[in-house]
């Protein structure tokens, strides 16, 4: 069959909401786009553990520590689900890890911001996981089967992340003056980077919407961002806090909140590697990988030994 026909069948499946599975024919660009997007997503889950991990030993109570540990452990799992989905496209886990460590592959720039106070952990759960959920809910309907299935699993776990974050901020917002100030300060620092998570404005892009046509993505950056602003602008009322945006205002005509301009210069700086913690994050990942080498090696050696036991030795041990 000529490639043309394969492409028609492929697009036909997409148009009819039939998922694409690993062994199906797919255009190379579709495969590569998925590899890039899924691996970036996986790296984001894994690097995302670092800013939060920073507070595990300093959480204010045993309860908060247990919650934070559980959340961070979930994020490790999310990374695994996504790395596995990525592998179904024919890329090895090692290549994917190498690309992160060499700086070739990116992860969400939000994780290049520091977690300065305990309130940041609440703000991350509420705002950062909240923004991620908007994207991930959409991705449960993405066209590549393994990616969609990973997203279903992830979304089931995510809502706890956002709720625990909000609840933690709620406690601070009803606390002492210092706690209230800490809560507001964390919101001030995380709000704009959270909005940047959705990527550049739709109008910035002059290129075709191939990802939409292939249903890898199903909503535009601006659409997702607007949904997020509308949700948070309402939820913050319960906290009695303010979003750091003078232009934030309900627009009755649009039936949406208007909001101010994002600092895109900052966004591109962080993407290019000049954010406050880019180097620190990558160094931490590389250190973990390198220092884990002896563990990986020892486990592999042990598995080899068990798989091919020396019969005489084995017998002797059993006799002894």
């Amino acid at each position: 069959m000529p490639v043309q026909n394969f492409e028609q069948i492929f697009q036909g499946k997409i148009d009819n909401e039939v998922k694409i599975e690993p062994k199906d024919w797919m255009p190379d660009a579709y495969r590569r786009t998925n590899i890039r997007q899924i691996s970036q997503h996986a790296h984001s889950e894994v690097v995302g553990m670092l800013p939060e991990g920073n507070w595990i030993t300093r959480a204010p109570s045993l309860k908060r520590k247990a919650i934070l540990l559980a959340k961070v452990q979930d994020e490790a799992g999310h990374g695994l689900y996504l790395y596995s989905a990525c592998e179904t496209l024919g890329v090895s886990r090692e290549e994917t890890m190498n690309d992160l460590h060499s700086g070739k592959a990116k992860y969400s720039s939000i994780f290049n911001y520091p977690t300065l106070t305990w309130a940041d952990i609440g703000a991350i759960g509420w705002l950062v996981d909240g923004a991620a959920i908007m994207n991930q809910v959409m991705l449960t309907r993405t066209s590549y089967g393994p990616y969609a299935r990973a997203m279903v699993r992830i979304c089931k776990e995510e809502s706890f992340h956002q709720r625990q974050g909000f609840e933690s901020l709620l406690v601070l917002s009803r606390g002492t003056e210092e706690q209230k100030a800490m809560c507001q300060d964390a919101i001030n620092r995380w709000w704009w980077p959270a909005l940047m998570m959705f990527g550049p404005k739709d109008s910035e892009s002059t290129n075709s919407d191939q990802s939409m046509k292939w249903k890898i993505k199903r909503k535009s950056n601006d659409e997702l961002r607007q949904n997020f602003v509308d949700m948070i602008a309402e939820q913050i009322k319960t906290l009695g806090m303010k979003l750091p945006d003078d232009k934030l205002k309900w627009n009755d005509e649009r039936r949406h909140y208007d909001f101010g301009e994002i600092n895109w210069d900052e966004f591109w700086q962080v993407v290019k590697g000049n954010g406050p913690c880019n180097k620190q994050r990558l160094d931490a990942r590389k250190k973990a990988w390198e220092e884990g080498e002896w563990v990986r090696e020892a486990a592999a050696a042990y598995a080899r030994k068990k798989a091919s036991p020396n019969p005489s030795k084995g017998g002797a041990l059993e006799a002894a």
Partner: protein
Amino acid sequence: MNYIRKFYYGDIPEDKGGAEISDSKNPPSGGRGADWPLWEVFIRSKQGLDHKHAGSLHAADAQMAIENARDVYTRRMEGESIWVVESKYITASNPEEAGELYDPAKDKIYRHPSFYNLPDEVNLM
């Protein structure tokens, strides 16, 4: 090469700092200890039900695969029994042969109970 240049949430394209990523056209030489095999994980959610495919993971051996599967796939009581099998032992049917394999079942409606019209008094059969 240029593929999709539009920058979506979570997808930083290659011309905006997201460099060309690897895709096994040039697989790496294999770092030490990075070559644990891939395992498929099957979980029984409840006694009496089938084991169902849950996902995959890398592990040095079967025991580690089960321990890792416990940690990632059953943290919220999703399972009470785990099977793992090395992915290389799974043989999958070829999607291009789907027609030959599954089409013959399509015109055999007499295999379904609804094919048989019975009088009302015995129709619960």
